[in-house]
């Protein structure tokens, strides 16, 4: 019944996963109760994740989504999953605050026969999830690094800077690793690195200090477009424009900035904010015993890793419609 909406699901545009315009998969089936838990929506990307998941669920008449408060307290998030288990939901879509910390309770859910779809931050035990939907954090760093390589070429004195997100998250470490590895390919390295906290204010502060620490920069990669708003504000405050900046995540705001062409922000690496929505779709397919109709497989695959494309002025129009508003 709700098939018409499915096309708007941006995963089809950006991720290249399940892509059933029409077909049996979107037809209403048995009622599916899905529990969804994510960290506190304290920055744009995370808010977009939850909102996309909710919107997707709303499009299916056969899906009932339970979304308790997002939280950065692993203790509380564990108890949310426990509540799902108690309730006997049909599937759980889980974007953990800390993948490792949520592993035991995910295992418990799987043991209780509830399939867990792990989104974005990976568990440390493969048995803890039936399906894992991952953004490609390492790949994101690689994409950003390759783009930076293109820009600075083999200038040995080029100064490359990096503004990371929350350092304690494995995803930040993966991104930084990818960035470093890609830069090494073209003989570059990260000269200045600071970490913010995914908030606008944090981005602004970190960038202010970074700009001071590096009087001349050739390329700057900022992990997150939401904190990027603050980074751009700091750059403007400092009156700097001698470098190219690459963003991360791919917010609509960043893309508009790229499109305008007069900003230091020349590109951003997409980190799909629709992973949660994909998780919902997969959960529904799993529970209803369906498969991904574009694939030959009779079962939903075990791991799906999303692509991390680079958006520049050239292709921004392709991505802008599906970008998240932070």
């Amino acid at each position, binding site marked *: 019944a709700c098939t018409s909406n499915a096309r708007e699901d941006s995963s089809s545009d950006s991720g290249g996963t399940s892509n059933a315009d029409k077909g049996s998969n979107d037809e209403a089936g048995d009622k599916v109760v899905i529990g969804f838990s994510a960290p*506190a929506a304290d920055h744009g990307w995370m808010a977009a994740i939850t909102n996309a998941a909710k919107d997707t669920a709303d499009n299916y008449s056969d899906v009932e989504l*339970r*979304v*308790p*408060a*997002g*939280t*950065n*307290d*692993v*203790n*509380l998030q*564990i*108890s*949310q999953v*426990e*509540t799902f*288990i*108690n*309730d006997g939901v049909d599937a759980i879509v889980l974007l953990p*605050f*800390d*993948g*490792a*910390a*949520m*592993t*035991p309770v995910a295992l418990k859910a799987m043991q209780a026969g509830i399939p867990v779809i792990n989104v974005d931050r990976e568990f*440390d035990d493969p048995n803890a999830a039936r399906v894992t939907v991952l953004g490609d954090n390492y790949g994101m760093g690689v994409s950003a690094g390759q783009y930076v390589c293109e820009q600075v070429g083999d200038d040995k004195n080029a100064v490359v800077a990096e503004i990371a997100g929350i*350092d*304690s998250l*494995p995803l930040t*470490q993966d991104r930084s690793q990818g960035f470093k590895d890609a830069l090494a390919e073209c003989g570059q390295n990260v000269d200045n690195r600071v970490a913010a906290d995914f908030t606008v204010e944090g981005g602004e502060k970190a960038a202010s200090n970074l700009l001071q620490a590096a009087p001349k920069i050739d390329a700057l990669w900022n992990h997150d477009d939401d904190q990027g708003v603050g980074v751009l504000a700091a750059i403007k405050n400092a009156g700097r424009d001698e470098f190219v900046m690459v963003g991360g995540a791919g917010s609509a705001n960043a893309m508009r900035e790229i499109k305008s062409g007069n900003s230091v922000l020349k590109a951003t690496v997409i980190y799909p904010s629709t992973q949660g929505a994909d998780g919902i779709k997969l959960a529904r397919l799993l529970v209803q015993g369906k498969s991904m109709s574009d694939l030959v497989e009779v079962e939903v695959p075990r791991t799906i890793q999303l692509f991390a494309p680079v958006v520049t002025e050239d292709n921004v129009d392709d991505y802008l419609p599906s970008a998240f508003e932070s």
Partner: protein
Amino acid sequence: MSDTPTTSAPAADTARVEREARRDDRPGRLALLRSSTGHNLGLIVALGLLCVVGVITAGDRFADIDNAMTILRLAAVIGVVSIGMTFVITGGGIDLSVGAIVALSSVWCTTIATQTMANDNHWLVMVGAAVLVGGGCGLVNGLLIAYGGVVPFIATLAMLASARGLAEIISERRTQIVSVPAFSDAFAKEPLGIPIIVWIFILVSAIGWVLLNRTTFGRRTLAVGGNPEAARLAGIDVKRHTVLLYVLVGVCCGIAAIMLVSRTTTGSSTHGLLYELDAIAAVVIGGTLLSGGRGTIIGTVLGVLIFTTLSNVFALNNLSVSAQSVVKGLIIVVAVLLQQRLARRSDVT
């Protein structure tokens, strides 16, 4: 009034004394009991109301033994911290560093070195490490406060910054995963259907209650919090006692860290974020005086349960964390205002 010097002396006081006696008949043993159970009763009623709301809005999903266990498991970690906090506040102090100490203890007890030792020897090594680190941080707090003369707010604020920073440095901001099977097994048990960490919470609460209400240590805590100068002149070593109080809350943080580690199978510098505010809120709602000299373990446990049940009911009803935050603020204010009103009324009548 009589004329004989000796008997007349009390007589001189008689009028006032009698007047006061009239006023004070009530706060005898019975009344004292009544007033404190009165307060706890209020909390129980509040908890009951929350449960009624839970049952109405979420039905069987709320009124379910598994859900009760979920609430208890959630309450256990912050509960143990709050028990420690009750002692510090009763003794006239405050500890803002509890969350940071939980983080540091959790990181310390899950380093590769500790885990290797635990694997080689016994999983209790990890417990020992957490408790020692917690107690050590508490010791530093206590020494700074008691002997350094730094006000508790500032000393523990400094510890908050340092301990979390240290936790980040030690863990290199990575989540450290537990790979000591014996440890995980030990905490996976559920004697009588109740998870180990809930048992720990029950045990710590019971010990806390006995310690505060039935031992010389507890009595001295009340004295130190009520009037430190009088306590000192009565022969209590106030400084040493203060140090002990902070060590106690540190040890509670160490225990809480172990519980969190077992629950998440990880140690991380992000554990225990903002526990200080949650614990203080629970303690104050429970009826412990922020200025010291009066403390109640049962109240604290009820306070923790109220906040935990609240977040459970919100979760069952798909309500947002923002609304929950607003409601929490309102509950704190209303509870404290009500306590004040009750206290005033019992003063006047």
